[in-house]
């Protein structure tokens, strides 16, 4: 055996878990993104009292696959006056940034690529913010007015809201006392409370800022289709366009994971330390089995036999997965897989909940105007986030030095922060009232 081969084998032996996790992420995220799109379309249809995609597969279940094939086969158009190299590079930057930042996220106590990285949470937000470069460069390289306006809006929006998101993250990090992703979740296990209850305002700020950072409605100004055609993506088509799309949905999963890790207890099940609630461990297999039962129920109502068989296959797959979740609970030698498997389930459930809120807001709220967006970011969210960091610090001192109950400390400081927020909103209202009087009106280059 040659020494080179030996070296490669030792390398694989040391790193096979990380490599496998990385390959799984790269392979599975596009599929998940496709199905998130399907879920989004179905939810939108439901909220607008229609059916959504129904043709491809039963209930449109194969729609994402058909879409992917369509995007792959579409003609790839590059505008004549585009900067070819950067036009080619930009969507790749967007997607690679989102995928790379997933490497440090702990999708469960065992499923994580960059295991012991000391600055985990900073790595995730730092690398995912690089996706912005892809958006700006794509907008510039397209050599089109719509694209460049979209890119400029995107930059201004992201730079403004990243500050607020950063301060919201700092509040949670103060409570956790570490930057390591796994240690943050373990800190929540030790204190027995998810940090959303100790820093609710920080969570709210992060929620709003993360919607703005992923360019989604009501903050989807960079691609506002009624004003800018498709913003920075106007000139993109086919597979390059789908890379941007993939990057956007991967980014949603990233911000959902960051929020889950920091505020919603990561992979912990609800009430992780309360032992008489241990029966909650049976919930994951039950939920998956319930999905299977629903598929069986719908199978009988399909119009064509092939669709009935397909539904039966989906149902059987659900039952198999439910069995995989359930068996280790009752078979003692397999107990060691329970934390990893169920942790991943709870984590993904919380991330799905977060993304559901994103979609819900998208279908509910109209788009902001650009000056409203900037006012919300700079006049309200950033001051509020700074005050909230101070408030969380004060709450921690009250708890540690004066022996307050942490619920009481969190409630008092949150109320103080809310009071300051009300004051800020009031001030802002007065200012806008003054500004809208004709004498003081200033041309705002960003408006409209």
């Amino acid at each position, binding site marked *: 055996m040659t020494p080179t081969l030996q*070296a490669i084998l030792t*390398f694989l032996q040391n790193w096979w878990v990380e490599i496998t996790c990385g390959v799984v992420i790269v392979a599975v995220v596009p599929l998940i993104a496709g199905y998130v799109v399907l879920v989004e379309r179905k939810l939108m249809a439901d909220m607008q009292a229609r059916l959504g995609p129904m043709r491809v597969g039963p209930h449109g279940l194969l729609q994402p696959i058909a879409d992917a094939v369509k995007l792959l086969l579409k003609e790839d158009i590059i505008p004549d006056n585009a*900067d070819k*190299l*950067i036009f080619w*590079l930009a969507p790749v930057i967007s997607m690679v940034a989102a995928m790379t930042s997933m490497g440090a996220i702990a999708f469960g106590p065992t499923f994580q690529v960059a295991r012991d*990285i*000391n*600055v985990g949470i*900073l*790595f995730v*937000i*730092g*690398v995912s*913010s*690089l996706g*912005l*470069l892809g958006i*700006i*460069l794509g*907008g*510039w*390289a397209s050599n089109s007015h719509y694209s*460049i306006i979209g*890119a*400029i809006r995107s*930059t*201004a929006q*992201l*730079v403004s809201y*990243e500050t607020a998101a950063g301060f919201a993250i700092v509040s949670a990090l103060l409570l956790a006392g570490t*930057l390591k992703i796994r240690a943050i979740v373990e800190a929540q296990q030790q204190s027995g409370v998810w940090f959303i209850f100790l820093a609710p305002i920080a969570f709210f700020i992060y929620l709003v800022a993360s919607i703005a950072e992923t360019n989604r409605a009501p903050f989807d100004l960079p691609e506002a289709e009624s004003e800018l055609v498709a913003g920075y993506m106007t000139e993109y088509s086919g597979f390059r366009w789908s890379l941007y799309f993939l990057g956007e949905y991967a980014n949603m999963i990233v911000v959902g994971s960051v929020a889950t890790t920091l505020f919603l207890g990561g992979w912990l099940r609800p009430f992780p330390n309360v032992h008489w609630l241990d029966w909650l461990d049976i919930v994951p297999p039950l939920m998956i089995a319930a999905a299977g039962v629903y598929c069986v129920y719908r199978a009988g109502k399909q119009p064509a036999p092939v669709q009935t068989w397909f539904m039966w296959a989906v149902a059987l797959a659900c039952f198999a997965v439910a069995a995989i979740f359930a068996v280790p609970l009752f078979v003692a030698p397999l107990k060691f897989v329970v934390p990893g498997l169920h942790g991943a389930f709870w984590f993904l459930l919380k991330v799905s909940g977060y993304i559901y809120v994103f979609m819900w807001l998208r279908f509910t709220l109209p788009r902001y105007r650009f000056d409203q967006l900037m006012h919300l970011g700079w006049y309200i969210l950033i001051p509020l986030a700074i005050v909230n960091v101070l408030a969380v610090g004060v709450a921690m001192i009250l708890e540690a030095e004066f022996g307050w109950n942490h619920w009481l400390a969190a409630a008092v400081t949150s109320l103080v922060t809310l009071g300051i927020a009300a004051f800020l909103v009031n001030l802002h209202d007065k200012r806008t009232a003054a500004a809208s009087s004709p004498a003081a009106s*200033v041309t705002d280059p960003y408006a409209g």
Partner: protein
Amino acid sequence: MLASIVFYFFAGMAVASAALMVTRRNAVHSAVLLVTTLLATAGIFLQLRAEFIFIAQIILYVGGIMVLFIFVIMLVRFDVALQHIRFRLQRWVALFVALALGVEITIVLLFARRLPGQGLLIEEPASADKLPPNTEELARSLFSSYLLPFEIVSVLLLVAMVGAVVMAKKRINDQ
């Protein structure tokens, strides 16, 4: 073996893209190459187990400063601007600075190994897992031994920020 492969990969990338950056005509291409240089340098920081500096480099320089650079470049028609702004002495100043830096680096690298305990290069560095966690160490020294310089720098940044706001305000009021 692996360590030197990784190092030469990052170092080569940094030097090559820096060289390309100064020779490109197109300002946006230069900006992209500068991003590559900064990322490669960040990789070298990571290899030196300075995780916090690695991520600070990415968040501040690549995610913040470079984004603003590109933002400004996009708004300026650089084909027009080039005609107006041509500082004639630039070439000579640049040459002088480059020479001075080169001589400085050569001296430091030459003498580092000759004076034990005073050089930049440590003969036998401690193994990585025995080093204290970088983030905590950095915070401790920033907020204890280097507290005064740290505070001075933060005041300086505040002054710069307030100055920028004042200048922007004046422009709006003039209109």
